[in-house]
């Protein structure tokens, strides 16, 4: 096969590699710190742990300048539209790190007000367990994210196009039939369903 037939493909692949290489070393985090995990996030940014070593030190409080949203802490129900709005304001390509037990699963706050895992409402790339996670774990997550970007990233964000569906977990509890639902504002297709009272 003539090289000229291959050339466009080869060229695009190289560009993807180059773009991912550049992107992964300058991740600008959006610190969406809602609770105690946020303190650990600040510690990670400070001189002792220093995520500047990995090119992620430029925390910006404007979502329009960020690539990676770090959701650190519990998110209450009322905060979800805000979080989604911030996420939508971030330019592509963007990634999301869910930091701490609360952001990943609701943690110990299994109450009426707390979102049981932000992945019910947002696509999450890296989960960090721990309450709170150590700064080393956050650094590990950033390294993992860098690896993910290097492996899957494309210059025009093609890797996101196919991910049309909901990527979060399925409902936690037994689902009720529609006639048993008592109060049902909103759309129950994908989020936590109304549950059978336990007692």
């Amino acid at each position, binding site marked *: 096969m003539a090289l000229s037939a291959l050339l466009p493909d080869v060229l695009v692949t190289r560009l993807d590699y180059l773009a991912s290489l550049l992107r992964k070393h300058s991740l600008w985090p959006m610190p969406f710190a809602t609770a105690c995990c946020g303190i650990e996030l600040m510690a990670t940014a400070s001189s002792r742990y220093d995520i500047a070593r990995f090119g992620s030190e430029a925390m910006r409080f404007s979502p329009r300048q960020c690539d990676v949203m770090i959701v650190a802490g519990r998110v209450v*129900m*009322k905060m*979800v*539209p805000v979080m*989604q709005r911030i*996420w*939508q304001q971030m330019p592509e390509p*963007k990634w999301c790190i869910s930091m701490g037990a609360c952001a990943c699963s609701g943690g110990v706050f*299994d*109450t*009426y*007000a*707390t*979102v*049981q895992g932000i992945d*019910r*409402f*947002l*696509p999450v790339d890296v989960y960090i367990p721990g309450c709170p996670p150590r700064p080393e774990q956050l650094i590990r997550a950033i390294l993992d994210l860098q690896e993910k970007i290097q492996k899957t990233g494309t210059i025009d964000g093609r890797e*996101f*196009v*196919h*991910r*049309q*569906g*909901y*990527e*979060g977990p399925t409902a936690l*509890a037994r689902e009720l039939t529609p006639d048993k639902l*008592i*109060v*049902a*504002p*909103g*759309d*129950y297709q*994908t*989020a*936590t369903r*109304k*549950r*059978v*009272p*336990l*007692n």
Partner: protein
Amino acid sequence: MAVDLEALRHRFGEVFTIEQFRDNRRLILPAAHAAQTLLPLLQCLKQEYGFDMLAELGGIDYLGYPNATDRYAVVYGLTNTQTGERLFVKAYANDPQPELPSVTSLWRGANWMEREVYDMYGVRFRGHPDLRRILMPADFQDFPLRKDYPLRGYGERHNFLPLTRAES
């Protein structure tokens, strides 16, 4: 120098009882009389007895409590800023439409505290200028601090559209 609550009690037709625990004095106003008596009583305490500050206002649900006769209680913590004396007034309300008069006409600071009690317990305050939910989202439909609110249930954590990768 504590005020004479017995005289006050006679003046209001003995509808409330007086309890004391150490230096903490309370007026207990049962649900049958709360709707008529609460506002005049608090007005009298404020204007004649000098309890000019509403330090706190909170709700209690007595469902399943031993010897409880009425279900909801709203507690008004009053302070006399001249003498430092404190007094608690506990007014009860019952299902199906728990309702008490609003004290926003006496203390404007009661506004948000009453909204919170309404939000968490569903006790309505008659005469409140703006009785909306204050903590929960406006379309939330239950009262989460009621004792019969299940640990899981009744439409909590509901529902916002999840965002997918492709559309965001």
